[in-house]
């Protein structure tokens, strides 16, 4: 059964106002920027964004007024510094106040692992002595019933939807992703639904030829979107590289609220879709980010 649809249709159907969304789960790579921009264009509001670090995608959604709550370990701009929109929202309530539930990378991973395993919580020793639990009311402290040692209990997170950018998928949502994956598997298994955004749509046989590389079960996938370049400016291993300068330009452009409005108008609101975005980026600019060399994985034989 084909789940192919346009990005706008996928967001319209499966990302309502008020939804909780886990994105950016591979950390600095495979960030679903195209999906995030479509969410902004469709004026979603009161979203809860869940993720480990978010390399400017969360900052953009916050700056566009889509976000009510952040459940994450880090929000900013990895190679350029702070996220200006995140700061304005937290410090001045611009464009609107933000609720932040602090996590570390480990606790956000544990929370999603617990969600995927269907357990109520995971115990851990991390963050003992940290103040993060003071700004995350979901955590509890407890002594281990075994050794009696102190532990932090991290409750399960079950996002409404995981949006995952991958290298390739078939039309039913059987997908391959490789390179840095971070907490993508935990996110897919913990979420009620998964939206797959793929660089390429390939025949079923391509995916089934290597079932160990499949990210998550396709029966959890609700939409499969073909969006080449959809992760720009983040990198996609084997497809294109990171556009470092774009992150710096974003950092400079969004220093003021007015600058942010202009940036959003130019790169998001005033753009129909990812194809138009790439046109705006410019052929040469995009070409410069393409692969300089191929590096193929050694063959693997599933024969019998």
């Amino acid at each position, binding site marked *: 059964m084909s789940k192919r649809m346009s990005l706008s249709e996928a967001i319209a159907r499966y990302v309502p106002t008020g939804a909780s969304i886990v994105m950016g789960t591979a950390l600095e790579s495979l960030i679903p920027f195209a999906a995030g921009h479509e969410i902004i264009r469709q004026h979603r509001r009161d979203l809860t964004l869940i993720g480990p670090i978010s390399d400017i995608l969360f900052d953009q959604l916050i700056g566009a007024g889509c976000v009510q709550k952040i459940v994450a370990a880090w929000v900013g701009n990895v190679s350029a510094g702070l996220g200006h929109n995140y700061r304005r929202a937290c410090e001045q309530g611009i464009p609107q106040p933000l609720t932040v539930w602090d996590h570390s990378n480990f606790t956000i991973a544990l929370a999603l692992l617990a969600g995927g395993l269907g357990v109520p919580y995971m115990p851990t020793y991390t963050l003992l002595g940290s103040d993060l639990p003071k700004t995350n009311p979901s955590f509890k402290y407890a002594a281990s019933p075994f050794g009696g040692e102190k532990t932090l209990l991290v409750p399960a997170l079950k996002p409404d939807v995981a949006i995952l950018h991958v290298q390739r998928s078939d039309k039913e949502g059987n997908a391959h992703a490789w390179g840095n994956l971070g907490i993508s598997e935990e996110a897919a298994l913990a979420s009620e639904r998964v939206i797959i955004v793929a660089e390429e749509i390939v025949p079923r046989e391509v995916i089934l030829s290597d079932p160990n590389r499949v990210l998550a079960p396709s029966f959890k996938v609700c939409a499969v979107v073909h969006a080449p370049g959809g992760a720009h400016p983040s990198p996609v291993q084997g497809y294109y*590289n990171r556009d470092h300068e774009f992150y710096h330009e974003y950092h400079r452009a969004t220093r003021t609220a007015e600058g942010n409005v202009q940036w959003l108008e130019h790169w998001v609101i005033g753009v129909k879709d990812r194809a138009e975005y790439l046109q705006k980026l410019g052929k040469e600019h995009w070409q410069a980010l393409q692969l300089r060399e191929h590096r193929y994985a050694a063959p693997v034989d599933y024969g019998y």
Partner: protein
Amino acid sequence: MATRLEYTPAELMVAAAAREIHNGEIVFTGMRLPLLAFALAKNLHAPRAIGLFECGLVRDTPAPEFLYTMGDPPNITNALWATRMINLMGLLQQGRVDLGFIGGAEVDRFGNLNTSYLGDPKMPTTKLPGSGGAADIASLSKRLVVIMAHEKRRLVERVSYITSPGFGEGEGWRARVGLPRGGPSAVITTLGILGFDATTGEAVLRSYHPGQTVDSVRAATGWDLRIAPDVCETPPPTARELEIIRRYDPAGFWTR
């Protein structure tokens, strides 16, 4: 007398950070300068060091190219393992990681770090990006090395919010709160290197960088900084160290 080498403060910090990595150690490598420190150590005194990167990578060689982020595609090339982040955090929690590197916006007398909130978290004067993996690395690695800018407003008597735990309130604190091990072993700043008293957990000035003095460092520190009896000048980067640092950061993105 050899002519004095030209180098930047960041290059000195990378060289000093690399010297904290012992051969054969498993190192949790943070973003920015530690990426260069790992490459430098691998090329010199720690050829058998192993690097863990929280995006999910394990390497025993430096990446073939400059990295803006640990998630850059060259960092996957010749990685030993590309796995789920949680597997690496699990190894960290097991006690398999010898040394962790993190950065800090604000550090205090007992090596506690704040990268979350300046002022009241409900309406902060400055919202910092948050923990990322820093609080995990500070909680669970055997040794912690912090790299940061040395300013009076950043080195404070007591951080208002502990993102990444150091020695808390001092002696015995980590054990009391339940942390299984660890604590900071060095804070490498733009002016000097702080160590920590094994008993009290209080910071002590281990060395001041060339051009600085004990007094200039103390003057830029927000508390009455104790001085190690054997305090000395930080050895400047060698020509060999500079050559390697510049090979991995040719444009000087992190080190100029």
